[in-house]
């Protein structure tokens, strides 16, 4: 008995039962397709998060006033006023691994121009902020260090603010808008960045000199945060050490005291976010994997029915000279043919679904070659695994009983 003949025999047997073969295959098709699509969606969102983080500046370091403890009571971070202008100044002057430094203060409120108004947020920063966040001014200019020193009432606005306040398409440069009660002269418009992966509008903001926001809007002397950039992503840790040293010294913390500030780097954030999306990928793949398993059990079920239904045929084959192993091979080949064909169709469908999700629903997807190979290998294995037991049962039939089976 050679392999080609066995293949022919198995193929003919399948061709005799096209509908049943197809229905069995359907389980595998759906299983494989969903594994591939789910992995593509998981990987796609992971990649887009990584991309956005590196767009935002992968060497970014954010300093926030930290949770302090007073008499055993942990304080709310937002109430802390530990970051001062001196901290900013010292980081600016004394560090070697820090490229740019900008204080941050922000305030939410209504932006108004003429009869149009819209809620937005104003960020008070220094001109370095553009480089740190990798923002670009599309039109006009960024405000200058001079403006910061004089707390000038100038601002640069995001594209959403332009759309909301200047719906007629007037050029906003040189126009005076109001934020709350304070008038600001628009000196520049930011390049549009669109929405990020969490659905946040990245163009809905105003930036102004931090001195202006601090004194004229918030009326505070402390800073809500400091944003820095390391010289390079690799130097993030060194930069954090330098900053931490300066802050501890400035804040007169003793050895045993906890930090009264938080330093978070984009690197950390990126690790956190990618591990979250990795987790999501695993969950999606697990659900899809279960459907592949259910498909496999479907194969086993059908093969069982098929063996019982074809008992006479098996008896006949044995009486005209088929050995046990020939019968085993025939049924195994049948189940592998079902699962491999189903796997192929599933791969095609899964890839097509991933492309449709990307093009129609605008959701980032990325098909990793290994996910295709893996799911294909898994479904071949499924065919062998779930085909084995029924095939074994067929091979062990007694030809005398099988041939007279009613």
């Amino acid at each position, binding site marked *: *008995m*050679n392999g080609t*003949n066995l293949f*022919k*025999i198995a193929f*003919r047997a399948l061709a*005799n039962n096209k509908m049943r073969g197809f229905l069995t295959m359907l389980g595998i098709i759906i299983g494989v397709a969903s594994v591939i699509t789910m992995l593509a969606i998981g990987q796609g969102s992971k990649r887009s998060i990584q991309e956005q983080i590196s767009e935002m500046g992968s060497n970014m370091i954010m300093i926030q006033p930290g949770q302090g403890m007073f008499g055993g009571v942990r304080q709310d971070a937002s109430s802390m006023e530990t970051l001062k202008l001196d901290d900013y100044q010292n980081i600016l002057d004394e560090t070697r691994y820090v490229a740019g430094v900008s204080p941050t203060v922000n305030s939410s409120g209504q932006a108004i121009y003429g009869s149009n108004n819209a809620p937005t947020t104003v960020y008070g920063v220094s001109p370095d902020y553009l480089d740190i966040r990798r923002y670009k001014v599309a039109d006009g200019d960024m405000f200058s260090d001079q403006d910061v020193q004089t707390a000038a009432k100038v601002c640069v606005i995001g594209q959403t603010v332009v759309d909301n306040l200047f719906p007629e398409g007037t050029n906003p440069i040189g126009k005076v808008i109001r934020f709350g009660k304070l008038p600001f002269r628009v000196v520049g418009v930011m390049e549009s960045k669109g929405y990020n992966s969490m659905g946040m509008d990245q163009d809905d903001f105003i930036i102004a000199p931090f001195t202006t926001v601090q004194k004229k809007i918030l009326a505070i002397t402390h800073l809500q945060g400091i944003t820095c950039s390391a010289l390079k992503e690799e130097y993030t840790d060194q930069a954090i050490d330098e900053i931490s040293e300066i802050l501890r010294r400035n804040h007169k913390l003793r050895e045993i005291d906890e930090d009264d500030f938080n330093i978070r780097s984009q690197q950390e954030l990126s690790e956190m976010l990618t591990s979250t999306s990795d987790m999501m990928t695993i969950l999606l793949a697990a659900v899809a994997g279960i459907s592949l398993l259910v498909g496999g059990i479907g194969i086993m079920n059908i093969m069982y029915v098929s063996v019982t239904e074809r008992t*006479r*045929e098996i*008896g*006949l*084959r*044995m*009486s*005209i*000279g*088929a*050995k*046990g*192993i*020939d019968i085993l091979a025939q049924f195994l080949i049948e189940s592998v043919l079902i699962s491999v064909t189903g796997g192929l169709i599933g791969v095609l469908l899964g890839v097509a679904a991933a492309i449709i999700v990307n093009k129609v629903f605008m959701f980032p997807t990325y098909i990793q070659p290994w996910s295709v190979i893996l799911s294909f290998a898994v479904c071949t294995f499924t065919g062998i695994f779930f085909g084995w037991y029924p095939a074994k049962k067929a091979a062990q039939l007694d*030809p*005398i009983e099988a*041939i007279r089976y009613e």
Partner: protein
Amino acid sequence: MKDIIRLDNIRRDFKVGDEIVHALRGVSFTISEGEFVTIMGTSGSGKSTLLNTLGCLDTPTSGEYYLDGTSVRKMGKNSRARLRNLKIGFVFQSYNLLPKTTAIENVELPLMYNPSFSAAARKEKAINALIAVGLGDRLMHKSNQMSGGQMQRVAIARALVNDPAVILADEATGNLDTRTSFEILVLFQKLHAEGRTIIFVTHNPEIARYSSRNILLRDGQVITDTVNHDIHSAAEALAKLPKNDD
């Protein structure tokens, strides 16, 4: 004449619960090449067990069985499968054709399990066998498009295709009407005339008239073993039958 089958004091016991049933109690006979033997017996006489033994589907508890010179008793499952493939052609009462499969593919089946035949050789042998049973014009008909007589002819062609040492027919006319039964008997007589060895197991005593030898079995033993000197022609009997109205 060469001995095709030699049975030497064959016994076959089955264990049913605590009891031992003696299905065959010492059966001995020899069948030479070219004989057309009917084996008869009522149900429970052991003829099915004898058929299974002759067909190498079962091995005797004791005694020796030589098929075409080879001792079968101590053969394993796989070597018996191989022996069946080469030496035996089965014809069953219920045809046992593969469903929705063409006549050629059904007839080819035994050769599919024999690696020494190429696809072309298989096809040629299958066509020749189908011509031999008078189905040369129905090669591509599927089994579900054929009458009972035609299906049994395909089954006989399948039994012939490997040029077996012996054809074993198990109630081969049992499912057919009188007329078709005679047509099949005519075919068996034709094969007999061509020198084939045929063993026909049946409970129908009428069929004994058309064979060259008759073995009667009762309670697992051979009661009579007679050579038939007056072989009736099945073709003549068929001609005497009233014609079908349609």
